[in-house]
């Protein structure tokens, strides 16, 4: 089936079998390798992307379902080559990652939260990230990163730039 897929603000027509997940379409057809395959059954959150600004698991969506939905992947966050957005930079600042495999999903889940709430409590941060499993960090520096990003967003009167995509 042919589906127009809008990812990071660009729409491309792809040809997929109905059984192809959004995750596989992003990786294999659009070459966006920043979205990672973890469990393929909706538990680990490594494949998290934003759909119309909300964090979703791309392994639990079919590509054929996604026409008309603005998808944002990790590749869509950085404002420019070599430039990091506020959330990405905060993850670097606190070392909110180690192997980097769950990181794109984690950052997108955090971005989804901060887009709605730029002053989250510790509990709200934990709740927003609870569907993303990290085996390296024990979450401490991740939660610090999200809190730091929130602080900087508030200080700069900014929210993550999702509007272009969504």
């Amino acid at each position, binding site marked *: 089936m042919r589906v127009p897929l809008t990812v990071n603000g660009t729409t491309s027509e792809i040809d997929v079998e109905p059984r192809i997940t959004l995750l596989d379409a992003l990786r294999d057809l659009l070459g966006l390798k920043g979205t990672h395959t973890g469990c393929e059954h*909706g538990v680990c959150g490594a494949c998290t992307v934003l759909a119309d600004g909300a*964090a979703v698991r791309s392994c*639990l969506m079919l590509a054929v379902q996604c026409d008309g939905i603005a998808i944002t992947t990790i590749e869509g966050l950085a404002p420019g080559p070599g430039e990091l957005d506020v959330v990405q930079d905060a993850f670097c600042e606190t070392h909110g990652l180690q192997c980097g495999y769950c990181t794109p999903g984690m950052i997108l889940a955090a971005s989804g939260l901060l887009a709605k709430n730029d002053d989250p409590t510790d509990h709200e941060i934990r709740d927003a990230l609870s569907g993303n499993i990290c085996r390296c960090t024990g979450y401490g520096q991740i939660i610090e990163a999200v809190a730091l990003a929130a602080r900087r967003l508030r200080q700069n009167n900014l929210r993550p730039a999702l509007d272009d995509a969504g």
Partner: protein
Amino acid sequence: MKPAPFDYFRPVSIGEACAFLAANPEARVLAGGQTLIPMLAMRLARPSALVDVTRMRELTGIDLAGDTLRIGAATTQAEALDSALVAREAPLLRLALSNVGHPPTRVRGTIGGSIAHADPSAEIALAATILGASIVYRDGDEEIRFEPVDFFIGPTITTAPPSGLLTHVAFPRRPKGRVGAGFREIAARRGDYAVASAGAQVVLHGDGTCASIALGVGGVGDVPVNVDLSELDGTPFAFDRVAGVVAAALADLECVGDLHATASYRRRAAIQLAMQAIGDAHAVAMEDAA
């Protein structure tokens, strides 16, 4: 873990969806996909086609219809959780929804999808059971309404007609009186399928006596269970007395044991959670001036 092949069909109307389902007995409805797609990936499920109803306008939305709160089957859990109507008219459902999965699964997961998959741990099914919601299917031209107690058979299995389409769930509106809801569940990790859960809606008369206590427990057996506490109707609310009635009502509760919890644990936990849920609900009802 790639699904076996299937066809994909996105109907625009209930009639079109029903016609497709009638003509394709091996087809399945795709609502939010948060339960079905993992089953496809593991090849536990292999439908001939998926009928994607996620964007069907007739199936989405939350509105009042007479004495019911009508929630379209394809309404997402996140939308229902954020809905002021749900908070006002079905506070128990709202509490239940806050326990469903994780934020990213609630964005896609739907009210109808959760009901149709009939997981005994599912919070929405439990809330529907406790509140006595009507589960409404369309099969061809026929509308079929199910009471939850007649609907759930076991995990993934319901009495729904094979070619039917779940169109909406009708929850009774907030009852008269002082109303409070409580919902508690336990799982090794928050957000997992509950190994035991309980929800309660306490309605008090103006003088603080019980008008009704609706209680249900989930996660312990094949189906969510409604617990009859009608003997407490009209009595003053006394926690010890309620505890006695609840313990007696749940003493013979049929529970399953599995690697996450023994049957005996589930039974004790169900009683404990039931009392906590009733306690929460009562506290809220006492604050409710309505």
